[in-house]
């Protein structure tokens, strides 16, 4: 037996979701604006709540447990907030400098390995030993990485072998983009399918979904036909 709270969640959720989909009609409308501002507002509120809880659990609780040095985290955070004040925003820059310096160090000490050295070493692989399939894969990857890189060389004039390498790289990039586009579409379709599945399983939710679709479409068409669709939407 489904209770009234669950029904209200599904009814409001489907209505707002279809309101957001109403942008597909081709014109901005007040239902879309309602959905957009609701998401912005409640989403921001959620982020505030979760971050405050994080500061509490990681900062305050640990300080209460005796880790007093973390007080500097709260002080630095408050310093950063002074960015909002014209007279004292130089204090914020000191806090931002600490955070930036630490963040750069965290990135530098690992990105060099994961994104650079290990990627290059994974490209330089044995090209004359292995099975037929392995050799095909390895040669393709090695050639692709090298010629694709030459396509993006802008600091030197491309002539001779570099020019041919660049042209080959361009064609191979198009093959790569074709494959990447297909995977990107798979992701987007998956997002949409998953969302629809959420409101078709269990089946009692389907009438609310269909009703929301019809109601939202009807409202948008009526607003469009009566030429009032632009009257209530926020200014760009």
């Amino acid at each position: 037996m489904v209770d009234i709270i669950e029904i209200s969640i599904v009814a409001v959720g489907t209505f707002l979701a279809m309101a957001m989909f109403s942008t597909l009609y081709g014109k901005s409308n007040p239902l879309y604006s309602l959905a957009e501002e609701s998401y912005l507002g409640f989403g921001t509120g959620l982020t505030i709540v979760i971050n405050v809880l994080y500061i509490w659990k990681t900062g305050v609780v640990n300080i209460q447990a005796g880790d007093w040095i973390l007080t500097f985290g709260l002080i630095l955070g408050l310093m950063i907030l002074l960015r909002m004040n014209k007279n004292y925003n130089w204090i914020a820059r000191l806090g931002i400098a600490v955070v930036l310096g630490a963040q750069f160090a965290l990135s530098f000490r690992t990105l060099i390995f994961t994104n650079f050295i290990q990627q290059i070493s994974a490209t330089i692989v044995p090209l004359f030993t292995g099975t037929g399939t392995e050799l095909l894969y390895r040669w393709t990857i090695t050639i692709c990485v090298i010629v694709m890189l030459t396509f993006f060389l802008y600091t030197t004039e491309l002539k001779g072998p570099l020019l041919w390498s660049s042209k080959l790289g361009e064609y191979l990039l198009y093959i790569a983009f074709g494959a990447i586009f297909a995977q990107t579409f798979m992701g987007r379709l998956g997002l949409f399918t998953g969302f629809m599945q959420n409101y078709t399983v269990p089946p009692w939710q389907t009438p609310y979904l269909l009703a929301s679709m019809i109601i939202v479409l009807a409202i948008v068409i009526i607003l469009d036909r009566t030429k009032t669709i632009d009257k209530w939407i926020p200014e760009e």
Partner: protein
Amino acid sequence: MSEFLKSRTLQLIIMISAFLIVFVPYFTSIPELSTFSTKLITITAIANAFTLVLAVYSQFRRGINIVQKRRRGWYFKVWMMLSIVLMCIFALLGQDTGPYHWVMFAIINPLSSVNYGILAFYMASTCARAFRARNMKALFLLSAGIIVLLYQAPLTGAFFPGIQPIALYLNNTFAMAAARMFLISVTVGGIVFGVRVLLGQEPSVIGVGKEA
């Protein structure tokens, strides 16, 4: 003294010191240094969480400006600001049940899902209208795209297993090589940028003056 506190030099000294405190211990095995480094990392994690306040402040400032000037659709901004406050109040009433839980599942989750799900339509529309085999490069792109699309539909592989090796070859070589190439290039660019910031040649990053 106050001029020194406001100077770019001090900010650079602080930034480089913080950098070294976190960077150097990673490559050494001095326990005290590692502990101090970890503490600084935790401190910056906490400080980072405060930056959200700046984003909320600018949201409210913009919203109040629109409401004061009564620009078209100002009531939506009132609703937006009200919903921020309401969500914070609901959180105080409890997060597992009650209005917080209701808003989470009735408003935030569905709208978040649609936010990205709607891109499927735009992608399909763009593909249908822009993907034309006008020349050899476009033909290569289309061919690779269609082969991988066919493979990604699970039904195809069940009836035509031969498509799997071709599609996997395209994905695991060409696509991966392109991704690797971008990764290497972007990382080099990122490191160069980071070094420039540490040397004080990109002061705009910490909000000071012009570039060197």
